[in-house]
């Protein structure tokens, strides 16, 4: 059985923005950047648990809304000199549909 599930349409995520997926394991943030690439991370900053989905997105980075840690969207890791990592989830586009796979790590 495929673990890929459609969670929304690309157009439902604002460019340079994010949506929150409510998942039993905890909220997942799905980001869209200016090039219409999508990324998915656990919606918790490794610093103090801030909801990354609420941060400002630029390039392939999101700035946590609580204390401004810069988390890489591709890798989930905090930019130096901060240290920490948010869990990544596999996400991809199929046409306009955003597919999320919470079983596989990205």
């Amino acid at each position, binding site marked *: 059985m495929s673990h890929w599930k459609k969670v929304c349409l690309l157009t439902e995520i*604002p460019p340079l923005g994010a949506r929150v*997926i409510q998942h039993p394991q905890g909220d997942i943030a799905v980001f869209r950047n200016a090039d219409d690439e999508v990324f998915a991370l656990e919606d918790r900053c490794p610093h103090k648990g801030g909801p990354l989905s609420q941060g*400002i997105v630029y390039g392939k980075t999101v700035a946590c809304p609580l204390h401004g840690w810069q988390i890489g969207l591709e890798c989930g890791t905090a930019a130096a000199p901060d240290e920490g990592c948010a869990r990544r989830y596999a996400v991809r586009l199929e046409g306009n549909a955003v597919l999320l796979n919470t079983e596989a790590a990205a």
Partner: protein
Amino acid sequence: MQKLKLVMIGNGMAGVRTLEELLALTPSRYDITVFGEEPHPNYNRILLSPVLAGEQTVQDIILNPLEWYAEQGITLHLGKKVVKIDRKKRVVYAADGTEAEYDRLLMATGSKPFILPVPGKDLPGVISYRDIHDTEQMLAAARQYRHAVVIGGGLLGLEAANGLMLQGMSVTVVHLGEWLLERQLDKVAGQLLQQSLEQRGLRFALQAQTAALLAGESGRVSAVQLKDGTELAADLVVMAVGIRPNTELAESCGLYCNRGIVVNDTLQTFDPRIYAVGECVNHRGIAYGLVAPLYEQARVCANHLAGWGYGRYVGSVLSTKLKVTGIDLFSAGDFMGGDGHEEITLSDPVGGVYKKLVLKGDKLVGACLYGDTADGAWYFRLLKDEQPIGEIRDHLMWGENNLGDTGHAGENKAAAMADEAEVCGCNGVRKITIVKAIREKGLTTLDEVKKHTKASGSCGSCAGLCEQILMNVLGSSFDATPKTKTVCGCTDRNHQEVRDAIREHHLVSIPQTMQFLEWRTPNGCATCRPALNYYLIATWPGEARDDPQSRFINERAHANIQKDGTYSVVPRMWGGVTNASELRRIADVTDKYRIPLVKVTGGQRIDLLGVKKEDLVNVWRDLDMPSGHAYGKSLRTVKTCVGSEFCRFGTQDSTQMGIDLEHDLFGMWSPHKVKLAVSGCPRNCAESGIKDVGVIGVDSGWELYVGGNGGIKTEVAQFFAKVASHAEVLEYSGAFLQLYREEAFYLERTVHYLHRVGLEHTKQRVVADADNRKALYARLKYALSFEQDPWAERIQGEQKHEFEALPA
């Protein structure tokens, strides 16, 4: 692609910093080869004095260990002196025959100590003070011999003399000048310094010229003979009479030199393939000898070596601090003064304090401090930023004192703080943590300290303390805040340039602005985007469209995010006045949405804390009250006292005035938050004296005060104007705030804006010039005509995606 070959001659601080900057920009553009004449990897030359004084070891001051070179794939030739450059073949040759080809050559050959051309200068026991080798020789001499003479009473000479004395030698300083450190201090401060050093045991021979160095029986130097015939016993002579750019090699290959290798603003020499940085360079006629400007050069040079091609080095303003523990002196700029200059001095010879400030017009141009240097960083900042100081002139001498009042136990002298003392009360950073980070990571700017330690990264009240710590640790290499502050790392433009460009070139969107101003990043960052968004909507209301994705979450969600990810909701209560119906709705909403905390705010509003994001729109709908904008860089609240309607002392109806002001300014976005207050009499129960705009009713009308602040640093608002009517209060307040909206930089509170432009400037435009005041007020009204209640808009369905989560 085949890598280019970069060869660097010289393995010192400026050169290696250039490589570090280059590798950060482009890790793989070059194969890098480094030639260093000394057998050591790059070390912190500034800290040789603490090594000599026995406070640190050689190992402590290594900046880049050998492993670093290996990790970066750099071919390192230590102990090899380059003796020839063939610019045609593009090959450098070392004395031992080692060769290296280059596509780009970086000369960082530093400087050489100047050796006085006196008889005996080559005797054993006569050395200069420049590198680890010299330091080791001095330490060895100190173990074996007794008498030392240091020739030169400059920074380096005094540090050497102090170190040798601490190593147990009897030291005399021979100095040509009339007083010590004549390039850094005026006569009074120089004499104070001399007294203090004499008390520690140093001896001085001033206005003394060295005639010859005499040899003893062993052939080693035994005395220094002065012009007047005096002989000073000396088993060790240290020449510290100055440095000269080391241009020997550059000159030998025909590179244009003139008291330094001449470079342009990109650090390029007259041979386009050859760059030069550091003490060997002559930039616009100046050869710098302190590390801060050299690091600035390194940054620019790396940028051009990386092929990025922007960034210019335009010179530096210098400040000085002596690294002799226990002696505080600081000087910057033109501290001697003279014609056309004015001086303010404070002299307390017994207490050992001397301060001189040199002013030209309404600018501070120089400072010389002895004994109490706590405000050195502040003066240096005023000087570099060329801030008008007319209004603070009468208390300029008493110091900034604007190190925050809170969060660090009132400490304002970094040097006196214990290592364990907390510097940053927000992030719990202790002094020792900052000192360690500065030493171990080679930090030189406040920004770097902020990044690495988090100190001063939150409220910023300890920034002054952190600067002082930097200054104390680094001494003369300290670099205060950069002269022009760029908006962020995405651009070289500062806020003023960005604001000007948006206005003059009619830029109306973020992408357009970034393209026009050649932003380096495709869509900015979390620092520049909110600033740009504000500048655009403030400059072109009705035309530039607000970009929610470039707003901080609070302004996007129109509520305040809390540490657990919930939000707080503050409905607007005009002038702090509410009624039974509103209170009932608030109570019902609290029950219905199980809101955990209801709290009265300092601005006379009610705050509902702990609201889930998905509930926000429904909460707003049920409240049926407009947004209180408690989350925005915008008009917050107008706080009022009861006023003449009820209060037996009230002279004016302050409550109604507050309500009207709040309606008049509703929806106003601004560079930072804006708070107002209206009091009905001078008893000032609404605390108008600490608001951005404070209004105080008096019997004959209203007094307006601006630039107050009750936050990190309590700032009392300054008197702005006295007006007679209600309508004038609205017009004057609105016009002042519009001027602030048009001229302030993003995140600059009114008090900081006023510090920058001067209160007089705003009075001229608002109070003295009636036409301009009316025009400003009209522009504000026009801008506000586009603003709706954001909560009402979202109840209607706008930005729906922001508030809805998706099921898995």
